[in-house]
């Protein structure tokens, strides 16, 4: 079990492999070079942020904590929504100017069902620095000073870094879905489970590797004893305060990584709402 708190984690420098200003606060990270490697960040997205239409070779979950986050024409993630961006599925272009204001979001990027894993934030920014010798990053595109061996001058910035770090062309899984899955999660009912004051909202589970998304709500003083699960889990505390059976505490915007079969009890000292992601099971 690994717990991190937004309050005690510093913001990183403003940097992006895409366009415009975005600042990250990385609360949790997984283990590099494993299929379930992940990174959980808070993303302070400036109104100038833009990103061309693109896809990933990993999965991504986003929620908006403050404001509204654009992820394509006519597509904004509002507070209360949950958006799932599966590997291989195109989305965008993102343009925060369409919202007209900055936003604060929580983003989890993680290795998807295809088993390609996830390049860590450390590997990403290290690769970006190394590539600056060979070209410039502009608006989400890496523009080479001289053509690559295959003749390309320009390339999606993330792709270029991934290929530099791995020494081979990036492979995208076939898209399982034609579009990201955008939940209007506030419209789903809470279901009381597992004792008084404990509520569950099942959003959905996807793919052959059972990537599962749910929400948990605890009333103040409620105690929740989860069942052990065969998958790793990531909990993000949207609101609330409390204490795990292990003695660790949680507060607003804390993040927790649970290994498979870890199931600490949760005792809420204030009304709590959390997003839970079950990582793919390999």
């Amino acid at each position, binding site marked *: 079990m690994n717990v991190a708190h937004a309050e005690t984690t510093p913001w990183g420098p403003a940097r992006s492999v895409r366009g415009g200003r975005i600042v990250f606060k990385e609360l949790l990270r997984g283990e590099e070079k494993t299929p379930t490697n992940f990174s959980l960040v808070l993303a302070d997205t400036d109104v100038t942020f833009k990103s061309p239409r693109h896809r990933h070779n990993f999965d991504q979950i986003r929620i908006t904590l403050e404001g509204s986050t654009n992820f394509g024409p006519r597509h904004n993630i509002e507070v209360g929504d949950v958006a799932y961006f599966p590997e291989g599925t195109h989305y965008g272009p993102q343009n925060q100017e369409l919202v007209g204001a900055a936003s604060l979001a929580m983003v989890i990027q993680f290795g998807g069902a295809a088993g390609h894993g996830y390049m860590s934030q450390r590997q990403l920014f290290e690769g970006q620095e190394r590539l600056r010798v060979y070209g410039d990053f502009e608006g989400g595109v890496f523009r080479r000073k001289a053509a690559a061996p295959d003749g390309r001058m320009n390339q999606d910035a993330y792709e270029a870094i991934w290929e530099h770090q791995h020494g081979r062309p990036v492979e995208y899984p076939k898209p399982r*879905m034609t*579009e990201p899955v*955008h939940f*209007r999660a506030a*419209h789903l009912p809470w279901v009381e489970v597992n004792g008084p004051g404990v509520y569950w909202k099942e959003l959905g589970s996807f793919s*052959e590797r059972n990537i599962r998304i749910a929400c948990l709500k605890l009333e103040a003083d409620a105690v929740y004893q989860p069942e052990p699960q065969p998958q790793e889990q990531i909990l993000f505390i949207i609101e609330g305060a409390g204490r795990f059976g292990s003695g660790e505490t949680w507060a607003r915007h804390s993040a927790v990584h649970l290994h498979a079969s870890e199931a600490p009890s949760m005792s809420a000292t204030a009304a709590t709402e959390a997003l839970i992601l079950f990582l793919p099971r390999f």
Partner: protein
Amino acid sequence: MDFVSFEAAPLHTRGTNHRQGSFRYKDLGQGTPGRLDNFYLRIVWTEGDFFSPRHMHNFDQVRAQLKGRFSFDKDGTMHPGGVGYFPEGTAYGPQTSAEDTIQLAMQIGAPSRSGYISEEERQVAAEALSKRGRFEKGKYFANDDKSGVGQDGFEAVWEYANGRRIKYPKKRLEKPLLVNPDAFEWLDVASAAGVRTKRLWDFGANALACSLYQIGPKSSVALSGPLTAFILAGAGEVAEHRYAKYDALHLAAAEKARIEAREESELLVMTHPVFPHPVKRSVAAAEVEHS
């Protein structure tokens, strides 16, 4: 267990049509009218003239594209092999096909507990409404409606059948989910040698979940209800029945059946929603908050 033979099912042409375009179909089974988990499975043939305006349902729908392409405008296009989930409350379309298509369509009661009106109820309502108005391009125009705006054809039918105004649940998903099963990996089923599965989605106990099963020759798998299994390909036996392409099998809660493949078979398995109290929809729908 309810086994429905595709070959033996009669082919119908929709007479009074609340959408537009030629529409032929075979019924492949239904549930119990009035129950929240009532369902209707059919296979539909359309020609290049089908049109349905942008609309939403107060039930869940799953479609499997068997031939041709179906366009849902900005919500995407279904290609052969594709499976789509159209949840209650989520608007989609307009829907058109510019070629001959074959599509499997499952319609079933959804989490808002509005249930699903049976095909018989729909037909009775559509015929009655035709006597006091007309259906045109998916809309219903009552003779006494001087506005000329009309009403969505399904809404008019639903309101007649239920005797009250339709209320749509708030949308859970912003768009329908269009899935390409070809991109999923087959995984072995641990308890059944020679059987592999692709899990497509699961939105929790109150909504229809979808998986594909591939059963090798002389292999078998035990299925447990409530579910509907549609034979996409292959041949074999289930209980006393011989199954073939496009047959359907419906299992009620706790019912079990063993599918034994003679030829390699592929099944679309749709696990039905489970409601704690499957009371009549007219009572239940009033208990939930609607938009």
